[in-house]
């Protein structure tokens, strides 16, 4: 028990970050689940985080209300942005959302109310570990339950084959936008929790590299299953500490090890870490269908 206490004393904050990153990864997962590659989650987290932080700090709103408003505002922005950008596909969508993220970051940097580069300082520390994990559990549960609902079926069908999904009667525009908006809502929520974790948030914490990190969590964890992104977030957030623990020297070597592990996962676990846990016995053979269809 003492070891556990010791563990939490050192790694309590890491546990918090894992929870937040898992939430953010889930928010991206929602759009990926509908087959859309978005890199906007970091920007939505910024919108939610700054809104919530400012409301608590400057308007004296209660914590939960601030976080809720931040999340809803982020969702609304997601809706407005989603409608035009979701006509794009693949990397084009990714880059459009990325440039949206840059614009958000620069706006935050230039506003007075956000504290500019020095960040929003002095946000009360109200987010608790149990709060993060309760949210994560609820979000994870909801997303897991979403799977068999109408929207869940639509997301999955669109991801698998958008044309076939449309021919089956799915209003693809509606459901893509829905996925995007829900993702923004969740990212905003995670941002709000994050803002109340460390007394301070700065624009740099919501930049390009964070957006890419979230994508990496999803791909490494696996996007075929709702817990994949959480697993990815867990592993990659903890990785620097694991490497620190195993005595890999600080600095470039640790960074290289980080990159190497990412590379190995991509090369050898095509469906991410979750595929390690997929029960064998279910036949998985076969080329992607496109290869078959083309030749016959």
């Amino acid at each position: 028990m003492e070891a556990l206490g010791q563990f939490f004393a050192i790694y309590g904050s890491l546990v918090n970050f894992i929870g937040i990153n898992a939430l953010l990864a889930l928010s991206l997962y929602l759009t990926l689940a509908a087959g859309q590659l978005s890199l906007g989650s970091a920007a939505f987290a910024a919108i939610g985080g700054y809104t919530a932080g400012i409301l608590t700090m400057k308007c004296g709103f209660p914590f939960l209300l601030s976080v809720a408003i931040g999340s809803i505002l982020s969702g609304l922005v997601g809706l407005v942005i989603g409608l035009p950008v979701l006509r794009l596909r693949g990397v084009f969508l990714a880059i459009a959302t990325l440039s949206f993220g840059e614009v958000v970051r620069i706006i935050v940097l230039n506003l007075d109310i956000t504290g500019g580069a020095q960040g929003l300082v002095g946000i009360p520390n109200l987010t608790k570990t149990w709060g993060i994990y309760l949210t994560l559990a609820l979000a994870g549960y909801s997303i897991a339950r979403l799977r068999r609902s109408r929207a869940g079926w639509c997301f999955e069908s669109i991801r698998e084959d958008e044309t076939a999904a449309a021919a089956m009667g799915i209003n693809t525009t509606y459901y893509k936008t829905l996925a995007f908006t829900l993702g923004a809502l969740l990212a905003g929520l995670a941002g709000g929790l994050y803002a109340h974790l460390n007394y301070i948030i700065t624009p740099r914490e919501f930049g390009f590299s964070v957006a890419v990190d979230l994508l990496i969590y999803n791909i490494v964890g696996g996007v075929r299953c709702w817990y994949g992104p959480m697993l990815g977030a867990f592993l990659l957030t903890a990785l620097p500490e694991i490497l620190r623990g195993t005595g890999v020297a600080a600095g470039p070597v640790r960074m290289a090890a980080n990159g190497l592990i990412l590379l190995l996962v991509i090369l050898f676990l095509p469906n991410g870490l979750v595929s390690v846990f997929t029960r064998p016995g279910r036949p998985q053979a076969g080329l992607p269908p496109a290869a078959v269809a083309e030749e016959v």
Partner: protein
Amino acid sequence: MLLQVRDVTRTFGGVKALDGVCLEVEKGGVHGLIGPNGAGKTTLINILSGITAPSSGEVLLDGQAVHGLPAHRLAAMGVARTFQNIRIFPAMTCLENVMAGQHMVASRPFFPRLFCLPSARRREKDQRIEALACLRRVGIEARADFPAKALSYGERRRLEIARALASRPRLLLLDEPVAGMRQKGVQEMGRLVQSLAAEGMTLLLIEHNMAFVMGLCSRITVLNFGRTLTTGNPEQVSHHSEVIEAYLGVSESHA
């Protein structure tokens, strides 16, 4: 008439894939659409299912103009289809593929599911039973829990049809349902099509296997170079000299 196609033209970058095509499909009939490769058959099916819009012309479904409507609206009006290059959802199981196909007819509210209400479980159970029935219908019930990508070619075709059936369509468009199948599979597919027609479903099918087409269809339309060559019953069509020419090439007597 369930379906009327009037003077439909579709161009792609200056090339006319369809050029003034007319077509009428009776309610409850099995209508064949044949013609050599590149005749525009698939383009026509794409227009009828809303994947592409016609450049000009009209499509009427039950007397109502539907051309240019998006695919999901046409599906809501009872049009289902399969694809020539089989577009099943490879990562889902067969049962899941069919359950996804129930989109138009199944009620799946989120909140009862979220709270694990019995109603949600009951509903899902019913839908599962119905989906299994669709799989049974096409003869791959035993594959229900297989991932779709693990199926053989013929099974994939059938799965795609099962998925289309799940939406209980009025009009089913089949794009080469027996391509690449062996004789036994062809016969089974023929029986399936007949039984569907017997239940009052209307079918429009593209197929190269003439035995299949001739044996099943009450009427056949022949396309060549984007135009309607002729429409008639199998007997008329198979003895139509232009049809034979289109298929076998210019025979020497004509050359």
